[in-house]
């Protein structure tokens, strides 16, 4: 029995150790698969968001109520302390507005934030923030009352939640799991880009309407509303009209609408 092993040279044909698929074909397949997965996630997020706002508004509200800083810092703003002159002024106008209306039981909080911008925000959780830029530009408490009334209306109509869009689902999950003042939630708040969110024309109109009503309930006349809107319009530079359109309808239209509402009220 020989332990001689016979050696036969073999020329291998082809390469059996590699796959036959072309790398570009494989890449296309993978990208399409990934795209499909992302589409499904996008769709599901939309459903979850609608469900949350419709059915679980109260839980959402209390989840975000404790953290006014969440959205404020996501926009790189800082709140003034409640003892500052601005904060006291805003609080007194707010109290006057709310106490003479059916909203006196609401627990909305008002704050002032330092910024040269002429703006005010209504954040999820009942937080209303007026920027010092706006406070310094207006000339009467009635104008301030209209602004506050407008933001209160957004809170009442749950607009701030809808404006977040699909980010709401992510933000809620994060706030629920790690608390609304965690770094993770802060990150999600930045992603949701509240600064650029847009309220619809209908939402803005409803806010102006309710704002006007609140103003009328607390002050002798509603001229503050028109004064404020005209001031806002005069501040708009040519091109800004169209940039600001992102977050508000054309101010000219708002003035027209409010004038119409005032006329309607006068005829009652």
């Amino acid at each position, binding site marked *: 029995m020989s332990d001689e092993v016979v*050696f036969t040279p073999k*020329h291998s044909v082809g390469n059996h*150790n590699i796959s036959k698929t072309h790398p570009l074909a494989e890449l296309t397949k993978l990208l399409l698969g990934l795209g499909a997965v992302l589409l499904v996630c996008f769709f599901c997020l939309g459903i979850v968001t609608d469900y949350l706002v419709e059915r679980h508004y109260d839980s959402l509200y209390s989840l975000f109520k404790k953290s006014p800083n969440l959205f404020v810092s996501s926009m790189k703003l800082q709140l003034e302390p409640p003892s500052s002159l601005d904060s006291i002024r805003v609080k007194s106008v707010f109290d006057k507005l709310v106490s003479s209306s059916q909203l006196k039981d609401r627990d909305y909080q008002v704050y002032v934030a330092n910024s040269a911008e002429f703006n005010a925000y209504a954040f999820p959780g009942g937080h209303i923030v007026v920027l010092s830029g706006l406070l310094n530009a207006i000339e009467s408490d009635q104008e301030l009352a209209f602004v506050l009334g407008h933001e209160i209306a957004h809170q009442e109509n749950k607009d701030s939640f809808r404006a977040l869009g699909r980010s709401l689902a992510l933000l809620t999950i994060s706030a629920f799991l790690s608390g609304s003042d965690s770094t993770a939630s802060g990150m999600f708040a930045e992603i949701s880009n509240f600064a650029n969110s847009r309220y619809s024309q209908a939402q803005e109109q409803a806010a102006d309407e309710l704002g006007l009503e609140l103003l009328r309930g607390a002050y002798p006349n509603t001229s503050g509303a028109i004064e404020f809107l005209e001031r806002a319009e005069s501040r708009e530079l040519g091109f800004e009209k169209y940039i600001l359109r992102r977050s508000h309808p054309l101010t000219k239209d708002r003035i027209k609408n409010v004038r119409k509402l005032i006329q309607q009220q006068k005829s009652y």
Partner: protein
Amino acid sequence: MEYLSFLFLFVVGYVVGSISERNHYSSIEERESSFLNLETTNGKKFSSQKAIRKSEFVSGSAVMSLDYFKRILASLKAIFGGNISAYETLVDRARREATLRLKEQAADADLIANLRIETSIIGGTADQRKTIGSIEALAYATAIWYER
């Protein structure tokens, strides 16, 4: 701006990578044909009838790196699973190149016995991802010359 540099690396990686891979394979196949008659085995037993003149330890190693295109493809695959064809050619080429370099060491030997191949991962990658970047294949064996 980041996307532009990504796209650039991606395209360059694909083009240059495919060309160099094709060239490398032609070189490998050519050299393998020239070594066709060199008996190679991973067994430890060899003929007891022939007297051995000398025996030497021989080795060859090769380091191959993934191009950017393959790296992205592999990371996409990492999400969905399945065989990663990008790594397959990498490992295949590295091993065959290492074996060829080993054979070049003892081109006139009568037998290459006890051939072993070991593969290991080397180094970081172009964009700091935690995927493999380079592979080193080491082939080592005993080269035997029989008495004439």
